[in-house]
């Protein structure tokens, strides 16, 4: 029995050593970590008041800080990265750089609200927490900490081996990869049509799922905390296919999370829904022309809400927007 126990203990030790200290995933997790570091660094260096877009990958793909910043005459950082990165991690990194008068626009993907605490304990960002962000773990719930410690499976181990090998063989430089994908404002700039075929449409969470989700409670907490310190937080809808029926109660549930915590909510007449040919490779990712078109619509509404005079977008962005099929 003692041998069995020691073997099990040894196994856990080896696992933590491998995934926590030795194995890298330079082409996936490492890239996300670098993106987070770069975006956080830019945010830290940015003067206030500034505009910050917070969401999953819907943020950088479907929204352009270059357009919005120019229209509102504000420095802007598109701080969204990927929906798989937990909001607790995102907020922990971004919140410390928000100041009174800053504006945060949050077109969060609907599944971010509905995510359960259990989802968070098996979240894809667990490996990121264990490998690069261990300092955040002490402040997190026990289940999330355990989820981070047991973040990875055999596939992750093999993926690490494959990524480390490929990265070495091809001499891939993560900075160069990111540079080809993002502009200086953190917007995705490589979603040039034609994109890959779009996958199956996912289910829209119900109003109850949105109201009771663990993700919703994290967002509510963030909105309340930031508005208390004078940050203007405005919620919004993520982009989606026009064919997807998002029930009014679901939209109302999202709006209520912001409104009841001191924030605002912006609903475009389009509900941020567009024909499928406006998208690049998923319903969260507009193609670059439509990213510009959507951002111009959004800029006009944000200017009105913030009582700012809207500036004309850059002519290049106007040309991008003009080539969007729905524009």
């Amino acid at each position, binding site marked *: 029995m003692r041998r069995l126990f020691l073997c099990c203990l040894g196994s856990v030790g080896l*696992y933590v050593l491998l995934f926590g200290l030795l194995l890298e995933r330079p082409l996936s997790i490492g890239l996300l970590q670098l993106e987070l570091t770069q975006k956080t660094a830019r945010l830290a260096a940015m003067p206030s008041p500034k505009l910050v877009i917070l969401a999953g990958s819907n943020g950088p793909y479907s929204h352009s800080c270059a357009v919005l910043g120019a229209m509102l005459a504000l420095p802007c950082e598109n701080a969204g990265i990927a929906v798989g990165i937990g909001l607790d991690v995102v907020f922990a990194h971004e919140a410390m750089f928000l100041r009174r008068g800053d504006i945060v626009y949050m077109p969060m993907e609907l599944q971010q609200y509905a995510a359960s605490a259990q989802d968070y*304990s098996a979240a894809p960002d667990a490996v990121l927490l264990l490998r690069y962000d261990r300092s955040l773990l002490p402040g997190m719930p026990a289940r999330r900490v355990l989820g981070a410690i047991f973040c990875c499976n055999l596939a992750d181990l093999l993926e690490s081996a494959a990524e480390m090998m490929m990265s070495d063989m091809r001499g891939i430089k993560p900075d160069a990869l990111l540079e080809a994908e993002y502009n200086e404002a953190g917007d995705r700039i490589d979603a040039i049509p034609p994109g890959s075929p779009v996958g199956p449409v996912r289910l829209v969470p119900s109003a109850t799922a949105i109201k009771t989700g663990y993700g919703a409670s994290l967002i509510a907490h963030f909105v309340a905390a930031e508005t208390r310190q004078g940050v203007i937080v405005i919620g919004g809808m993520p982009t989606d296919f026009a064919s997807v029926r998002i029930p009014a109660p679901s939209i109302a549930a999202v709006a209520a999370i912001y409104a009841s915590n001191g924030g605002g909510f912006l609903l475009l007449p389009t509900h941020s829904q567009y024909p499928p040919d406006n998208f690049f490779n998923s319903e969260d990712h507009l193609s670059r022309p439509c990213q510009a078109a959507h951002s111009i619509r959004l800029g006009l509404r944000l200017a009105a809400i913030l009582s700012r005079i809207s500036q004309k977008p850059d002519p290049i962005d106007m040309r991008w927007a003009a080539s969007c099929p729905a524009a």
Partner: protein
Amino acid sequence: MFVIGFLPVTFAGFLWCGRYAGRQMALAWLFAASLLFYAWWNFWLLPLLIASILVNFCLARRLSCANGKAWLIAGLAFNLGLLAYFKYAVFLAGLLGRPGALGTIILPLGISFFTFQQIMFLVDSYKAGSFAGTFLEYGCFVGFFPHLIAGPIVRPRDIIPQFQSLQPLAAWPERLADGAELFLLGLAKKLVLADSLARFADPGFAAAALGEPLTLIEAWVALLAYGLQIYFDFSGYSDMAIGLARMFGINFPVNFNSPYKAKNISEFWRCWNITLSGFFRDYLYIPLGGNRRDEWRWVFNLMLTMCLAGLWHGAALRFLLWGGLHGVFLVIHGWFRRSSVKLPPGAGWALTLSCVLLAWVPFRAANFAAAGVFYAGLAGLHGIALPDIFIKMLPVLTHFVRAVPVLPYLGDARTLSLPQAVLLLALGWFVALALPASQQMSRQRRSAALVASFALSLQALFFAPYSLPFLYFQF
């Protein structure tokens, strides 16, 4: 729930009963826990299991009467009738051109296993002339939870005496450690290896079901992954069952003995699902006459046995084809063995493995059309494609390989899916071909396997976003 709830409570209760209430009470506890285990899946089918056990127990008591043979026939008819109704009635109605005539019939979990178990018992009891055991001993023999729903199919003469002489407290710490070790190794085979391989097997077969043109690499990755998935899934379950039984002081026979190392197809069947193969050999093939009669009768006996073994896995013609293919392989091997031609061992192994793998296609495919699409992919009829990143690394490939952004039916359809698949398949085939079967491992090797796998099992058990059921639960 099973690992942290049911198992510890059942084991503790078993020891407590053994210490304070005696062997009979410990057996009663074990039987009750097994029924609860079964009812957990579907409470409304528990009466079926209990009725089946009761009827067979009563029938066994009658086998020593003057008209014992008639009772045996009645028993066989009862068991086979039950199996036929629940497992094959809808299939037969479909074959007779009346699909849907019987509506939906729920297939009770483990019915194929507990029915065969009891057929064995009736036949053996009839041959022995009597059965002197108690109802509890019989109930535990059939219903003992480690083997109730997916085997192994154990012989009454091997197991019932163990329940009759069971000493719940004898060397229980050693038993527990030994059984738990085997259980954990089996759990790792299932959760760490089989479930990881499913990510590469499932997309290929799903694409074939939709008639999508699978390219050569996608098809071979899916097939090599499925061959390993089903092996690790079922041999993992068998190890878990043997380990669980050992914790309670019962020794189950070995069910898998490195079958993919077999040098011929007969050897494969002596190493794959050994207890089921043994059942078909001893209770069907040999009673039919085996190879003791003329050549064509032998071919007939073998083909019938293998076709029925195929159908046992599921009520579908593709399972019949799978069994039939193995029947043909066995017949050809029988003829070959009698000829003067001898294959080198390596060639025999490669041929056997190729035949077994190719026969998995109809077994796993959704239907014959899907199997056809899959075979076309394996033959390269839909071409060879590779993600362009790899073609850029080896430009010589451009002459015979089509460049694509990603292979859509390989794993998660990402650029890195291919190297991941190669590494996983290399690991899986190394374990299947180069390492001994878990029960033949030395203590050191078992310890090493446990160190390598335990934390990954823990992760899959408690922190994976989803889990896959055991493949053999559906049979």
